Each structure stands twice: as C-alpha cells, then as structure tokens.
C-alpha cells in the first residue's frame, strides 16, 4: 500500500515541525513543471520551426498540422483515461487496424457489396469499444497487468485485421465516409472537427461524470477508493472501453482519410499517443493530468513531426526522439517520489 500512496501525495511528515509546511518543495517543482512545461515547449517549438522555415507558419501548413493532429488527438484522449488510472493501453495499433478494415468492408467498397455508409464508422467504433471491454475485463477480473493484457489484445487486433485484410487493402468507395477525409469545412478537414468534438466530449466526461472524477480518485490512491466503497473494476473497465472506442474511431478516421482499410494503418501511432499523453503532463503513475493537457501534448507531437519533415529529417528519427521523450517525461515527473525502499517494477 505504502508505495501506492507515495504515488498519490507527499507522505505526511512524522514530526510536528514539518507538519504545517505545504506539499514538499520538490513536489511543488515537479507540479509546476507539469502545468507550465508543455505549453512553453509547444510555443518554443513553434518559434523554432517558424524561424527555421518560413512556410511553417503558413495557413496551409497550420491546416496540415491540424489535420495531422486529428487522429493522434483522438487516440490520446482515450489513452488519457487509462493512464490516469495508472494503466496503459498498448493495443491502439491493433484496434485501429481492425477498425479500419471493419469500416472499409462495411462501407461501400471494392471487395464486397456492403454499403452501410456511416453505420460502418459506428461499427468501427463499436469494434474498438469491444476490444476495450475485453482488455478491461482481462485486466480487472484476471488481474493481468494492463500493459500485458493490451499487448496481447493488440496482437489479436492485428491478427483479426490481417484475416479481414486477406492480402489486399479494400478501398472505401462510400462518398460519405470518404468526404470526412476529403472535404474542407472552412478550410479544415472534417476530421479536425471530429477530433475537436472528441476533445470536448472527453473533457466533459472527465469533468462531469463518475468515470472521469473517479479516474483521479482511483489513479490517485486506489486503496482509499476501495475503502470508500467505489466499484473500482467498473470504472477501470469503462476507461479501457473509452480508450478502445477512440482507437476504433481513429481507425475509421484513418480509413476515411486514406480511402482504404489496412493492417498497418496505425503504424507508429502507439508511440505517438503515449508520448502525447505523458508530454502533455499526465503522469504514467496515474492520478494526475487530463485531456486538456493531452491536447497540448498531441499538438507538441504533431508540430514536432511536421516541423521535422519541413526541415527534412528522416521520419524514423522521430521514433527515437519520442522514445527518449517518454522516458525523460516519466522520470522527471516521478523524480521527487524516489526513496531508498521504494519498489518499482
């Protein structure tokens, strides 16, 4: 129990002298870093790239960034709910793959005679939600660590997608679905508005519902939550369902954008997503953060990717950068919690 509480708040000092001092200074420092850091980093990046390349700040590129943030943002918002609980969802790429194929094969396509239009998108989301449900149940009922459960489910997702894929990417012919990726509303791709909508919904859930509020409670101190009689399993499972649904939606968005369903359509997204969440300032230890922070994080990642391309850096360098960033972000935010006898696995 003890370590878990450490994660939640500064341990109460043993002696009176220290009792009335506020949360230990180092914690305050790391909290300041959490709140102020990401926005500053974002602005810094924009300034740097703006200086490096005049086109970076052009309207068309801004729209490009918005479009490229859309899918990542949707994924990251869902992931935030899981990470707030101290869990993780490594299955996003698999879920996206399955979802994209479900969408491509249910909407009008060049493989079969289905033509369910927008219902296909719903089906994609539903498929994602189902994955989330299974991951959640595996995690809560069987007590399988979330990263293991979702690692497995991710593989299953890829597998199902591969079966549906059957060697050739089915093309989406449905005008409605395609228009998501192709139309422009006031200059922005509809996908951008979808992402914004998801962001708002995510924020409302986090602010006004049990799922959201208990996310902080359970992630902050699961033991206390249990003592307070909160049905922890239910809310954990719900968080995974949310994450699964957003991954499903992201898969649908990718399908509508590229006009195909593909097994590798989510390639690299898991990294980008986790990075976006932790860079935004949500602790992997759980209990701290939120979708509003994640929005910043997603923008940082997208700007970084876009800027690096503009400057002409090979895409796979981003992978290294993101990898390092994840670890540093987690290490920095958890630094003040280190003790000699703390056990971290």
């Amino acid at each position, binding site marked *: 129990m003890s370590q878990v*509480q450490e994660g*939640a*708040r500064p341990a*109460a*000092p*043993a*002696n*009176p*002298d*220290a*009792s*009335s*001092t*506020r*949360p230990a200074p180092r914690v305050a420092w790391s909290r300041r870093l959490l709140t102020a850091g990401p926005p500053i980093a974002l602005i810094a990046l924009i300034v740097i790239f703006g200086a490096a390349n005049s086109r970076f700040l052009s309207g068309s590129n801004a729209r490009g960034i918005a479009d490229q943030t859309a899918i990542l943002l949707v994924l990251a918002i869902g992931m935030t709910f899981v990470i707030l609980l101290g869990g993780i969802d490594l299955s996003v790429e698999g879920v996206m793959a399955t979802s994209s194929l479900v969408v491509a094969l249910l909407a009008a396509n060049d493989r079969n005679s289905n033509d369910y239009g927008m219902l296909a998108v719903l089906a994609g989301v539903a498929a994602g939600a189902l994955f989330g449900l299974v991951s959640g149940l595996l995690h809560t009922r069987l007590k399988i660590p979330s990263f293991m459960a979702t690692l497995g489910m991710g593989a299953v997702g890829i597998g199902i997608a591969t079966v549906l894929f059957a060697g050739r990417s089915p093309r989406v012919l449905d005008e409605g679905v395609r228009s998501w990726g192709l139309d422009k509303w006031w200059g922005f791709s509809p996908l951008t508005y979808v992402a914004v909508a998801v962001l708002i919904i995510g924020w409302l859930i986090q*602010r*006004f*519902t*049990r*799922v959201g*509020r208990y996310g*902080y*409670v359970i992630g*902050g*101190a699961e033991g*206390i*939550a249990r*003592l*307070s*009689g*909160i049905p922890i399993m239910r809310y954990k499972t719900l968080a995974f369902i949310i994450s699964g649904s957003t991954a499903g939606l992201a898969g649908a968005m990718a399908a509508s954008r590229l006009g195909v369903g593909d097994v590798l359509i989510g390639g690299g997204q898991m990294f980008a997503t986790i990075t976006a969440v932790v860079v935004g300032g949500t602790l992997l230890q759980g*209990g*701290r953060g939120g979708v509003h922070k994640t929005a910043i994080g997603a923008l940082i990642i997208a700007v970084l990717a876009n800027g690096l391309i503009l400057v002409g850096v090979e895409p796979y360098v981003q992978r290294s950068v993101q990898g390092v960033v994840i670890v540093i972000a987690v290490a920095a935010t958890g630094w003040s919690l280190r*003790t*000699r*006898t703390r056990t971290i696995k």
Partner: protein
Amino acid sequence: MNGPVVEFRGVSKRFPGVLALDNVDVEIRPHEVVGLIGENGAGKSTLLKILSGVYQPDSGDLIVRGESRHLATPRHAAAAGIGMVHQEQSLIGTVSVAENILLGAEGSSVRGGVYNWKDLNQRAQRMLSKIDSQIRPTDRTEDLVLAQRQMVELAKALAVEERGDHEPVIVLDEPTSVLDGDDLETLFAEIERLRDIASVVFVSHRLDEVLRVSDRVYVMKDGRVVAERDPKAVDIAELYRLMVGRETAGEFYREDEQLEVDGAPDVIKVEGLGRKGAFKDVDLRVRAGEVVGLAGVEGSGREALSRALFGAEPFDVGQVLLDGARLKLGSPSDAVEAGIGYVPAERRVEGVAMGLSVEDNIVLADPGTISRRGIVIPSRRRQVVAEWIDRLRIKTVSTQTDVANLSGGNQQKVTLAKWLSSPRLRVLILDHPTRGLDVGAKEDVYTFIRKACAQGLAIILIADTIDETIALSHNVVVFRDGEITARFSAAPGRKPTQVQLVEAMV
C-alpha cells in the same frame, strides 16, 4: 434516545496465533467523547476496524442504536452513521475538497453518473460549516496544509450523518499524531463542537490529550478492556500503570539472564545523527552484549533512527562508527556487510521473503556462510540451515517449505535466524520484534535476545511495550519529537519505572 449509540457486547476477534480482542464490552453514549488508550497490540485498532466495518467479530454483538448490526464493509458502517478519521490521511490530493468529503457518498449530487457540482459543493459546504471551517469546497485538496486536511477529514467523517437521520459516531484514530501547537488547539475546539452534534471516539498515544478531551476513558491491554475511568478522577501515571502494568515482569523477560556489560567495548557509536523532520542530535553507544532500548511514542523518531542506522533511510548530519570505524550507510546492503542486522516491524513485507523457502530465507542475508568463492556448498547449506532451525526451534514441515506457510512466530524466528546465522553480525536492530506474536513466541524471542547478548552482539531494541523495553534493556533512551529527552540505566534490580519513562515521553 439516551441508551448507548454503539455497544460492543462480549466481542472477540482472533487472528492466526493471537487473540486480538478477548470478550470486549464497550459502549458509546450520545453526545460524549470516549477516550480509548492502550499499547500497540492492545487491541485498539482491531476494535476500531470492527466499528468501521473493516473486520467482523468472531463472536459477540455489535449493537448500534439498540439493534444488533453486522457491518460487512466500510460502506455499511458509514450507512450506520459511523465515520472514521484515519490515522494516515485518506484524502485524494488531486480532486476538490467537496469530492473528498462526499467520496463514494455523492448520492443526490450525481445523477446517472453526471455530477451536479453546485449541489455537491453545497452539501460539502454544509459539512464544513458544521465545524465552521474556512476551507472552500472547491479548493484543490493537495493545496491545503496538513491541519486543514485534518479538518476536511473531520467533515468527511461527519458526512456519514447524511446517510441516516441520526447523529453520527465519529472515530478519531490518532488524529493528533501529525498536528501540533495551534493546529492541535483547533482540533480540540472541533471536538468540543462535535460533542453537540455527534458521539466521538478519541484514540491517541498522548494521554494528556485523552484526559483533556474525553468524558470517559477505556483502557485496553492484551485484547481486553482492563479499566474504565473518569478522566477527572485519574492521572496519567495511573492510566499508564493500567495500560502496561504487568506482574509477570521478572522471569517473563528472563531478567535473571541479563548480563553485566560494564567495561565491555563499544561496538556501535552514533554521533550527532540527524535528519530534518525525523530526528536530531542523536548520540548513542551500544557495547558488546548490551541491549539499548529506544522508548517513545509513535513518530517520536526512534523508528526513523533505527531505519537510518540500517541504511534504509538517509541521514543529513552526524556519523555512525562501528568499532571506531566510520560507516558508509548508503543502503541496507552497506549495513549488512558491515555486520548490522535489522528485524523490521513489517515482518511479512520486510522480514521474510514470502514465496522463498525457509532455507533460502535463512541464507538470504549472508550467503558467505554457505559458500566458498561465491559457489554454494550444498552440504554446508544443509547443515547451517538445519542447525538454526533446531537452535531457534522453528516449526516447519521441511527446509523447502514456503516461509509464507509458517505461523507469525516462526516467521519471526526465521528472520532472526537469517541474522544470527551470519558470523559477521555485530549489531542487531530489533524493531517491534514481538509485535503480533502470541505469548509463547514472545518468550522465545526474549530468550534469543539474551542468547544473542551472550554472544557479544550489540542490540538496539524498539520494543512493543514499555515494560518490555525496560525489562530487556541495559540502558533505555527516551525519544520525543525526534530528540533524546532522557537516558536511564536499567541494570537488573535498578530498573526505571514506567512512569519515569512516560513522563519523558509525553
């Protein structure tokens, strides 16, 4: 109504190897503050846990407002109008005060999973005004100072009254342990106020506080209620005698086996040791064959000191000398290699390695005894393990048994064997070595402590009870608020009285 709000009738609770509550009768009447005192392991916390629905009694009745109740979970207890203020804080830092106060009891404020903040905050505000606190329901909890959080805890406990139409019973478990000065006064003021709207159970190590706020005091000892007193008609000294008084003393603690240590060489010396917020200016010396007992209430700094001496926690200033050589204590392994052993209070987490066999546990600390140049010699391992299982009379099916399958007493013996079997051991730190053990196991432990002395070990003892401390030690050092407030010589026959210690402790 004027009958008792809560009544324990002949309640007993047994845990493996120990009878935690033995036929206890306690009653809490409306609008009174009941004090509950007793040493560690006297049964206080078990009583409270039953009251708050964490444990259920094996036998006897818990009667709430006239009817016998089975409180299966904390929720049931809360529904019955019983609210806890836990010893270690039970607030979530990252959410608002209101959410904490009504955690798990949002009720009307959450419809269909959707929050009605206005309503939630109003209800929380009502609780806060009851103890007329200035804290705003919308404040972020982790931004409050500890005293304020204590108030929120109170408000949270009060919130249980919303669940029924009756006045609540508020249980304050060591609420003062993290408070001081003005904060303390505010708390007492609150308790006064609570008396008008609720019944209060007040548990504390600080007897003066108990006497000050309570209308009645129950004294617990060895799982029994040994006395019920009127605070006006009793003084601290008597309370302590009731709490710890034991006739068995002498032979029970093997005092006759206590050896003379005058003139024995210093083994470990502690000079000006200190860590901010834990302990300061600690000077100690322990001679070969000597037991130095550290006395003090919880949080007095003695536990922190013992862990620092073992390298499990850091210290800022001062130094530790072993046989005159300065020690580097960067980690427990440093201490172990220097010949310091530690028997932790958290036996089952830090003492024995659950899942490993008895054999592996015994050789865990110093594999050197069973290996040559890093390679295990099976024959020697068998022999060493067998020897110590025999010496400490460890009851186990085989050497390969998972130590988790042993009783608490035998687990403690395994922990002792782990250290005693190491030839390089010079100093043994015992942190509550008899906690949770039955009488038989306790006596064994005492015997081994004496034996260890005979081998010339230096022993630092944090005992479970005061008389244990006095009886086992050659010298007793008393801590309060992280500082040494008194030192007593405790040679056989010339032992200090408990009262003397107590006065130095509080």
